[in-house]
C-alpha cells in the first residue's frame, strides 16, 4: 500500500479532529481553521485523484486490524476522490465568502460552534463518499442531520427557528426510514458491508425469496434519502431553510448536505442493491416521475417568489429534479449525467447563495427585486459571480449546465420510448422557465436603480470578493474540464461494480 492511499482516512480524521478542536478556539481562529481544513482536504484528495487516475482500479482501506465484514472499511475510487476535491473546494469558497456575514449574523461567542458544524459537515461528506459499510453511512447521516439543523438555526431569528424545526422533523423522518431500510437489509442478508449485501441480494433474487421485503427496502431508501435531499414532493422544508439562514449555511446545505444524500442513494442503488434489481422494481420510474415533476414545479415556484434567496432556493428543487430524472432513466448514461449535474449544481448553487448575499448587502440588505436594480454595478464581483452561476444553471455553452443538459438529453435519447419524450419535453420547458427567472434577475442586476433609491455606502470586503472570483473560476472549470470529469465519473461507476 502506498502512502497516498491513506488520504481517505486522513481527510475524515482531519475533519473530525478540527471539528473537535474548533470547539475550544475563539471564533476568529476557528473560521480560519475551517477554511484551512477545506483547503488541505481538497489538496490531499487532488493528490489521490491524480494517483487513482494512473492506478486504474479502486481499493479498500481497513479501518483497524480486522478485514472487512468484521471491521469497518473504506473504499476509494476515482469518482469518490474527484467528488471529494470539488466538494471541499466548495466548502472552502463558501466559508471564505460568508465569513464576514457570520460575524454579523451569529452571536460572536458562538461563531466557533458554527465552525464545528462546518468541519463536521465536511467529515460526514467525506465519510459518505468513502465508506463501504451501510451502518457507518448511517452514523454519518445522523451527524449530518444534526449539523445541518444547527447551521440553519445559527442565525437566530424567528424564521430560521421555524425552518430549523421543520427541517429537523422532515429530516428525522428521512433518517428513520433509512434506518428501517438498513435494518431490513441486515435481517435479510446478515451483512452491513456493501459488497456482501450485494452478493446475498443477488442470490436471494435469483432464488425468488423475500421479493416483497427487497422491494420495500428500495422504496424506503428512496423515500428516506429523497426527503433528506429535497426531492420534489418532500421539498417543503427547503425554501425557508435555504432562504433565511446565513449565506455560508445556505451554500453548504444546498451544495454539500443534499448532495451527500443523493450520492449515498446512488451508491446504494448502484453498488448495494444492484442495477438489475432496481430497474426491474419500478422504483426508478417513481424517481423519474418525481424528478420530472420537480423540474417543472420547482421552476414555477421560483418564478413566483419575490425574494432573491427564496428564488434561488426554489431553483434547487428544480435542479434536484434534474438529478433524480437522470437517475430515473435507469441507464448507465443517465447515472453519469445525473452525477455530473449534481457536481455542476453544487458549484453553481453555492455561488448563487454567496453572491446573492453580497448583492443584497449592496442594496441596503434588501432581497427585493426593485431594490436590487443596479446591484451588479455596486458589487461587481457578486454581480459577475451571480451571472455566471445563473448562466450555468440555464445551460449557456462553455459552462457546466450546458454539458449536463446535453448529457441528460443524450441519455434520454438512448433510453428511447416514453421516457425520452417526457424527459426531453420537461428539459425544454424547465430550461425556458429557468431562463425566465434567472435572466430576469441578471437583467435586474444591471439596470439603473429605481428613482429615489439610496444606495448604501460601499463596503470593502476583499475576502468575499476573492471567494466570488473563486466561484467564477470553479464554475468555468467544471464546464471547461467536462470531458475529464465525465471520464472520471464513467470510470468510477465502472469501478463500483
Amino acid at each position, binding site marked *: 500500500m502506498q502512502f497516498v492511499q491513506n488520504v481517505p482516512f486522513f481527510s475524515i*480524521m482531519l475533519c473530525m479532529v478540527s471539528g473537535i478542536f474548533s470547539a475550544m478556539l475563539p471564533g476568529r481562529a476557528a473560521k480560519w481553521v475551517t477554511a484551512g481544513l477545506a483547503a488541505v482536504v481538497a489538496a490531499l484528495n487532488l493528490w489521490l485523484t491524480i494517483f487513482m487516475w494512473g492506478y486504474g482500479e479502486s481499493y479498500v482501506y481497513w479501518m483497524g486490524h*480486522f478485514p472487512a465484514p468484521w471491521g*469497518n472499511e473504506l473504499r476509494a475510487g476515482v469518482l469518490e476522490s474527484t467528488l471529494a476535491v470539488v466538494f471541499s473546494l466548495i466548502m472552502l469558497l463558501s466559508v471564505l465568502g460568508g465569513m464576514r456575514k457570520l460575524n454579523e449574523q451569529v452571536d460572536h461567542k458562538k461563531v466557533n460552534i458554527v465552525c464545528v458544524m462546518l468541519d463536521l459537515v465536511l467529515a460526514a461528506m467525506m465519510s459518505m463518499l468513502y465508506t463501504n459499510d451501510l451502518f*457507518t453511512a448511517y452514523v*454519518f447521516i445522523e451527524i449530518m442531520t444534526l449539523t445541518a439543523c444547527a447551521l440553519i438555526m445559527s442565525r*437566530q431569528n424567528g424564521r430560521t427557528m421555524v425552518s430549523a424545526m421543520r427541517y429537523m422533523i422532515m429530516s428525522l423522518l428521512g433518517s428513520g426510514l433509512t434506518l428501517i431500510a438498513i435494518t431490513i437489509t441486515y435481517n435479510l442478508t446478515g451483512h452491513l458491508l456493501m459488497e456482501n449485501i450485494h452478493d446475498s441480494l443477488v442470490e436471494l433474487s435469483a432464488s425468488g425469496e423475500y421479493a416483497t421485503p427487497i422491494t420495500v427496502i428500495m422504496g424506503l431508501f428512496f423515500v428516506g434519502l429523497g426527503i433528506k435531499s429535497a426531492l420534489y414532493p418532500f421539498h417543503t422544508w427547503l425554501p425557508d431553510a435555504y432562504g433565511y439562514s446565513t449565506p455560508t449555511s445556505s451554500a453548504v446545505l444546498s451544495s454539500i448536505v443534499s448532495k451527500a444524500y443523493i450520492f449515498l442513494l446512488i451508491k446504494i442503488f448502484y453498488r448495494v442493491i444492484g442495477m438489475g434489481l432496481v430497474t426491474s422494481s419500478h422504483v426508478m420510474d417513481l424517481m423519474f416521475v418525481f424528478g420530472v415533476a420537480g423540474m417543472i414545479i420547482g421552476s414555477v415556484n421560483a418564478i413566483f417568489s419575490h425574494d432573491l434567496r427564496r428564488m434561488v432556493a426554489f431553483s434547487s428543487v428544480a435542479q434536484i429534479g434534474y438529478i433524480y430524472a437522470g437517475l430515473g432513466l435507469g441507464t448507465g448514461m443517465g447515472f453519469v449525467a445525473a452525477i455530473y449535474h449534481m457536481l455542476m449544481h453544487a458549484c453553481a448553487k453555492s455561488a448563487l447563495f454567496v453572491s446573492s448575499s453580497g448583492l443584497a448587502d449592496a442594496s441596503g440588505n434588501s432581497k*427585493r427585486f426593485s431594490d436590487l*436594480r443596479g446591484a451588479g454595478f455596486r458589487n461587481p464581483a457578486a454581480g459577475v459571480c451571480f451571472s455566471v452561476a445563473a448562466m450555468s444553471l440555464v445551460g449557456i455553452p462553455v459552462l457546466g449546465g450546458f454539458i449536463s443538459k446535453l448529457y441528460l438529453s443524450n441519455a434520454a435519447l438512448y433510453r428511447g420510448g416514453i421516457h425520452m419524450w417526457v424527459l426531453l419535453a420537461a428539459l425544454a420547458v424547465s430550461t425556458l422557465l429557468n431562463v425566465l427567472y434567472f435572466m430576469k434577475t441578471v437583467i435586474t442586476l444591471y439596470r439603473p436603480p429605481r428613482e429615489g433609491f439610496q444606495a448604501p455606502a460601499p463596503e470593502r470586503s476583499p475576502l468575499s470578493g476573492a471567494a466570488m472570483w473563486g466561484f467564477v473560476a470553479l464554475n468555468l472549470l467544471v464546464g471547461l474540464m467536462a470531458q475529464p470529469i465525465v471520464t472520471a465519473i464513467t470510470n468510477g461507476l465502472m469501478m463500483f461494480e
Partner: protein
Amino acid sequence: MTGNDSRPSLWERFVNWEAGDESVLDGEIEQSMDQAAPQEPGGELYAHAEKRADEQRTRLVEEERTYYARVHEWSRHKGAKLINRLYRLSAVLVLCFIIFFLMSTVVALPPFGEADNPYNNEVSQRYIEKGIEETGAINFVAGMILDYRAFDTFGESTVLFVAACSVLLLLKLGDHGPDEKPTAAMLEAEWDDRHHEPKNDAILQLAAKVLVPVILLYGMYIVLNGHLSPGGGFSGGAVMGAGLILYLNAFGFQKTERFFTYRTFRWITFLALMTYAGLKSYSFYTGANHIESGIPLGTPGAILSSGFILPLNICVGLIVMCTMYAFYTLFRKGGM
C-alpha cells in the same frame, strides 16, 4: 396584485413581475428575535406605508388586506372545517396504508430467532469464537463496538458531541467574565431557576447525600469493567450523568460549580474526544498499512487488559456524562 377595479392583463402582470413587482406583505414576517413583537397585527405595516408617504402603496396594502381577509374568512370558517376533515381522513388513510405495508413486510421477513437465519453467519461467528482471542475483551459487545467497529463508535461519540454543541448554540445565554455585566436574559433565567426549582429541600438533600456517591461509584464501575462485564462507556456514562444531575437538583448551581463548570465541561469533552481520535487513528493507520500495532492485549479477564478498550470506554463514558449534564443545565437555565 388582485385589483378590484382594474385587473391587470397577463402581459401587464409579466411586465410588472419583470420590473421587480413584489408583494407588500413580504418580509414583514421576518423578525429578528431580539425585536419586540408588533402590538397589533398589521399596525407596523401601516406605519411603514405612511412613513414612505406613498399613497399607491397604502392602496396596495389595503387591497392586499381585503384579499387576505377574504381568503381568511373562508379558511377560518367553512374552509377550515372542510380542510381539517379532509386532512384527518387522508392522514388516517395514508397511515393505514403505511402500517399495512410495513406489517406485510415484517411478516415476509425471516422468522425471529431461527438458527438458520441469514444474520447467523460468519460475521457473528467470528465475533463469538475469536472475540476474546483477538480483542482481549470478555464482553463481546465491547470488543465489537470498540475494536472491530471502533470507527462507527467514534462517529457515535461525535454525534453526542454535535448534539451538545447544537443545544449550546441554541440555548446558551453566554458567560460573563468578572468585569462584564450579566444580560437581562441571563438575570431572567436565573430568577426563573430560583423560582421554579427546589431550593434546600431537606429530604432531597439527605437522599442525594446518600445516593450520589453510590451512583457515581457505580457508574465508574460500569465504565471501568466495560470490557469484562455487561456495560461500558455509554451505559456507565449515563449513570454518572444522572448522579451529577441529582446532585445539582439537591444542592443547586453554586455547589456544583465548585467542581463542574462550563470550562470543565469543555475541557473534559475535548480531551476525551481527542484521546479517542488519537488512539484509534494510531490503530487505524497501523491496521490499514499492515503494521504490527504492538498494543499488548493482556490476560483476558484482568482489569488491565484488552488493549485500547479500557481507555476508550473511559473516554466514551466521560463524553456521555458531560453531554447528559450539559443537556440538563442548558435546558434548565441556558448555562452551567
